[in-house]
Every structure is written in structure tokens, then in C-alpha cells.
């Protein structure tokens, strides 16, 4: 479809662009003290964009802007994930005391711009667009990580993020250049066609090298081992609402990009919409991804055990969760991708919820240490119960949404065949390890000697927001048919007909 026609299908994104511009203009007229009002403009823009997305036709699959991005149900569901998670992040940012008395106009503008980048990441099918969208998200992430510029750990987070981020995107770009040289095109589907029509036994090595370089770039984005070293420091140093956002939205976009990229590059003809997909021979990408997945789960969980800081613990737990989600990608089955999307949706609510409670507690008691949580369960029953709920869900215990998500993931792995059983066993063992450190927080809150004496009731705003995050976590664990059907209907991809 050409550029002019495409605009009709690009309205949610255009609303976001208008919101970004509008936020900047409004920011000019506000004093530093009132600059948080930009958040309301951003919220309205996100809601409008969500409404226009809701009323867009759900089943349309087409390519836009001269085949550089696509519109399909798969990208649509991810757009909703980004809009919801950024909406919640902006609400959390309005509540936290970490950002009080700072100039916040750019902060909310940048979050809105990041949504645009995330949306483009999930819809790109052209190497140029993929690189541009990843860089749009990365550059904004660097600024947001260092937003508290008088705080030393925020600076440190930013410098670590920028160096790892620029380095891994450089590696990925080199991989792209090799891929371009091998296939002679930057469009994913044409590359797939070229790879299939040629006997590529002699270009095998360069294909593997370029795959490894690209995985380094994507793996950095979703924080899988061994590209995870930036994660704990960046998550600890960034403003906590941004940490919560980083641990959900860019990760979801990275996974969506990975599913689309790997399957449209290495998949057999029409790989995404048939029941069982076939991969090209000669590139061991499935084995590499499975190994990385196992490594990520093990490293994330084993290091999480030793953490004393809640933010660092959640950072390592998010690494472990990236490992679980990564299991679903190399299975080459519809079930696998279904489980990935399903898990990302339930993960959004529980991860943001856990971070939000840690923000409320940090604001009230000025601590991020796990030991200092002693007694919160009794002094503030609401926070105690919800934190326990999120911890149960992150572990994957019934009757929470995390259990259903893990169930679908492991079921997809088992159904994919006997050669994948080992990764399922690694995953289950890791869930058992994760039980230890998640339950430690619950134990400290309820059974350790009381550190906190005065009772504390969160503000009504916090209670409402926590309910928005907590109710889906328990509801999707009991009654998940609606979300099942929604995700199931979203597994349609754009495939060009040559």
C-alpha cells in the first residue's frame, strides 16, 4: 500500500504523534511546579489512541508505507499492551514522591514518544524500520533512566544503559549489514524468499554469524543472559516508575519483534499462519535460543536469591521471566507464540503491581531493603495481601494469572515434542527456585519481628490503581476464557502473496 493510502490505517499512531507535539507545547506554558499537568495531556492522548485502536478493524492484515511496516492482529494486541502499560506507568509517576518538584514535561512527553517506538517495533518488517524503531526506544530509555540527574545512581544507570545499549545495537547493525549482503534486500519477506530459493550451504557460516550478532541486539532489549549485565544496575538506579515500565513494555516489544523477525526470516513459506511451522535447515537458531532461555532462567533465579534490595530482586526476577517467555519462541508452533503473548499480558499486571507496591513502601518508609518490610503485612493489610498476591502470581501458583501463563508455556513446550522436554524440566525446577525468594518477601512481611509499628493506609488513588493491577491478576487466574479467545484471535500475521 502506498504512503497516502496507509495514513488511513495509521490513525492510533498519528494520535500519539499529535499528543507528543501537544505535550511539548503545553509544557512551554507551565511553570516547573505545574509541569506534572503534562501527564493529563499524555493520558488523554493515550486514551484517544486506544479508542481509535479499539474501533479499528480487528482482523485486517495489510502492509503499510511501501511494505515497511505491517498491520495485523498480532501487532494490534501488542499496541494495547503498550498503551495499557504506559497508561499505568504515567499514573504511577504522578503518585510517587521520587519525581516530586522536578520538571516533568519532558518526562511524560518522552514516555509518549516511547510508545510510538514500541508500536513501530512490533510492526516493522523492514531492517531499516526495525533499526529505527529499536533506536527510538533505546535513546528515549537512556534519557529516562538518567532522568534524576542530581542523583548519582540515576547517572550511573544511564551511563551503563547507554554504553551497553549502543554497543549491542552496533553489533546488531553489523549483523543486519551481513544479512543485507547475503540476501540483497532489507525486506524480511523477500529475504525469506531468497534464503529459500538458494542453496546456502556455502553462506551458512556468515548467516550464523549474522544471526548471533542480531540476537545480541535483541537479547539486550529483552535482557536475556548473557546480555543481561546492565539490567540490575539500570533497574536499581532509574526512577522506579520507569523501572517498572522498562521491565514490561520494551521487553514485550522485543519479544514481539523476535517472533516476527525469526519466523519471517527462517520460517518455511507461510510459516506464521499455519499450525506447524518449519524452519530452514542449517542455522541452529532454535537450539541457540533454547540454550539462552535455560541460561537466562538459571542465572536470573540463582542471583535473585541473594538480593537484599527489592528493586534488584525484581530486576533479576524479570530476567528469569524473560527466560521463561523465551522458551515459547523456538518451538515453531502456534501454541508457543500463543503462550508468549498470554504470558506477557499476565506478566504486565503482576510486575507493574509488585513495582508499584515497592514504590508506595519506599515513599512511606524510605526503604527498599527486604528486611525492612517486616510487619507491613499486619500494619497495612491491604498492601500485604496484594504484595502476596503478586508474589504468588510471579511464582506461578494457582489460583493466580501467573499460574495460567506458566501452564500454557509449559504445555506448549511439552506438546512441541520430546526433544523439548529438557527445557520444560529446567523451567519447572527454576519455578521451584523462584518460590524461595518470592516467598521470602511474604514471610518477612508477615512473620518476621515487626519493624514497622504504625498502621498505614495508602491513599485512595493508590488503592484504586492497585485494584486495577490486582483484580486482573486474580481474575485471569480463575476465569481466563475471555483473554484466551482474545489472544487466540490475535495470532494472525501479515504474509505477502508473491
Amino acid at each position, binding site marked *: 500500500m502506498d504512503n497516502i493510502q496507509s495514513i488511513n490505517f495509521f490513525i492510533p499512531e498519528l494520535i500519539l504523534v499529535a499528543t507528543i507535539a501537544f505535550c511539548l507545547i503545553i509544557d512551554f506554558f507551565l511553570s516547573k511546579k505545574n509541569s506534572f499537568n503534562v501527564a493529563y495531556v499524555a493520558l488523554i492522548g493515550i486514551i484517544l489512541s486506544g479508542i481509535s485502536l479499539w474501533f479499528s478493524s480487528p482482523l485486517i492484515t495489510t502492509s503499510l508505507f511501501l511494505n515497511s511496516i505491517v498491520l495485523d492482529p498480532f501487532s494490534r494486541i501488542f499496541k494495547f499492551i503498550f498503551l495499557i502499560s504506559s497508561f499505568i506507568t504515567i499514573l504511577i509517576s504522578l503518585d510517587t514522591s521520587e519525581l516530586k518538584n522536578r520538571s516533568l514535561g519532558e518526562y511524560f512527553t518522552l514516555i509518549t514518544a516511547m510508545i510510538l517506538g514500541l508500536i513501530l517495533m512490533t510492526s516493522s518488517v523492514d531492517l*531499516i524500520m526495525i533499526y529505527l524503531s529499536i533506536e527510538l526506544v533505546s535513546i528515549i530509555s537512556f*534519557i529516562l533512566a538518567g532522568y534524576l540527574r542530581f542523583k548519582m545512581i540515576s547517572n*550511573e544507570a544511564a*551511563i551503563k544503559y547507554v554504553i551497553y545499549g549502543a554497543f549491542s545495537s552496533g553489533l546488531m547493525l553489523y549483523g543486519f*549489514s551481513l544479512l*543485507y549482503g547475503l540476501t540483497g534486500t532489507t525486506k524480511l519477506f523477500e529475504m525469506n524468499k531468497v534464503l529459500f530459493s538458494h542453496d546456502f550451504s556455502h553462506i551458512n557460516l556468515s548467516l550464523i554469524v549474522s544471526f548471533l550478532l542480531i540476537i545480541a541486539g535483541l537479547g539486550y532489549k529483552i535482557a536475556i543472559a548473557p546480555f543481561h549485565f546492565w539490567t540490575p544496575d539500570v533497574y536499581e538506579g532509574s526512577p522506579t516508575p520507569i523501572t517498572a515500565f522498562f521491565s514490561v513494555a520494551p521487553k514485550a516489544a522485543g519479544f514481539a519483534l523476535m517472533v516476527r523477525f525469526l519466523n519471517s526470516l527462517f520460517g518455511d513459506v507461510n510459516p506464521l499462519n499455519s499450525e506447524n511451522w518449519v524452519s530452514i535447515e542449517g542455522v541452529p537458531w532454535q537450539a541457540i535460543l533454547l540454550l539462552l532461555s535455560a541460561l537466562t532462567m538459571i542465572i536470573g533465579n540463582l542471583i535473585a536469591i541473594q538480593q537484599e534490595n527489592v528493586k534488584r530482586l525484581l530486576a533479576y526476577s524479570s530476567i528469569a521471566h524473560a527466560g521463561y517467555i523465551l522458551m515459547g519462541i523456538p518451538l515453531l508452533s502456534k501454541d508457543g507464540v500463543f503462550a508468549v503473548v498470554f504470558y506477557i499480558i499476565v506478566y504486565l499486571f503482576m510486575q507493574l503491581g509488585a513495582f508499584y507496591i515497592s514504590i508506595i513502601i519506599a515513599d512511606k518508609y524510605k526503604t527498599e531493603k527486604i528486611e525492612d518490610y517486616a510487619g507491613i503485612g499486619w500494619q497495612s493489610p491491604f498492601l500485604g495481601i496484594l504484595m502476596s498476591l503478586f508474589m504468588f502470581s510471579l511464582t506461578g501458583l494457582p489460583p493466580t494469572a501467573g499460574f495460567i501463563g506458566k501452564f500454557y508455556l509449559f504445555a506448549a513446550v511439552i506438546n512441541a515434542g520430546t526433544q523439548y522436554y529438557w527445557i520444560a524440566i529446567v523451567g519447572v525446577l527454576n519455578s521451584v527456585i523462584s518460590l524461595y525468594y518470592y516467598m521470602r518477601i511474604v514471610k518477612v512481611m508477615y512473620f518476621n519481628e515487626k519493624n514497622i509499628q504504625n498502621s498505614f493506609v495508602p491513599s485512595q488513588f493508590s488503592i484504586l490503581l492497585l485494584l486495577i493491577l490486582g483484580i486482573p491478576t486474580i481474575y485471569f487466574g480463575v476465569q481466563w476464557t475471555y483473554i484466551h479467545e482474545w489472544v487466540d484471535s490475535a495470532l494472525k500475521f501479515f504474509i505477502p502473496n508473491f
Partner: protein
Amino acid sequence: MDLNSYLIISAILFSLGLFGVITRRNGVAVLMSIELILNAANINFIAFSRYSGMDFSGHIFSLFVIILAAAEAAVALAIILNIFNNFGSINIDDANKMSQ
């Protein structure tokens, strides 16, 4: 000059960049090494585009890369400046306040 000479030059540049990122501890030097990696990829793009008689997407890609590298460098230098103001040094190993 044939395609291979360009590819060899770009591979050398890439390796130098990789070496620089690993060994240099000065923030600006690390940034320069990253630019070397990006430019290695640029040489690849243009060489492939020129020698295989394909479309111009390689040229266009390298233009985008140059623009993004400039944007990234601007943000990174701002962050390094901030590090210098707070830590009094641009050695990235000095910026290590958080526990390991």
C-alpha cells in the same frame, strides 16, 4: 578494488571497535569505539549496495545509521557530562556506587 577489500576493511574496523569497547575505560573513548562499529556496518551496507547491483536501500540504510549515531552520541555525551559533574571523572568504572 573488489567487494572483498571493502569487507575486510569493515571487518578490521569492527574488530577495532570491539577491542576499544572492551579495553577503554574512558567514557568518550568507549563512545568513539561504538562509532567505529557503526561505521563498519555502514561500509558493509554501501559496499554491498554498490557491488551487487541491487537497489539503493543499502545507501539509505547507511544515511539513517549516520543520523541515529549522531542522536545517540548527543544523548551519550550529555549523560557523560552529567557523570563528570557528579563523579568528577569520565572513567566509567568510577561510576560504580551500586552494590554488585
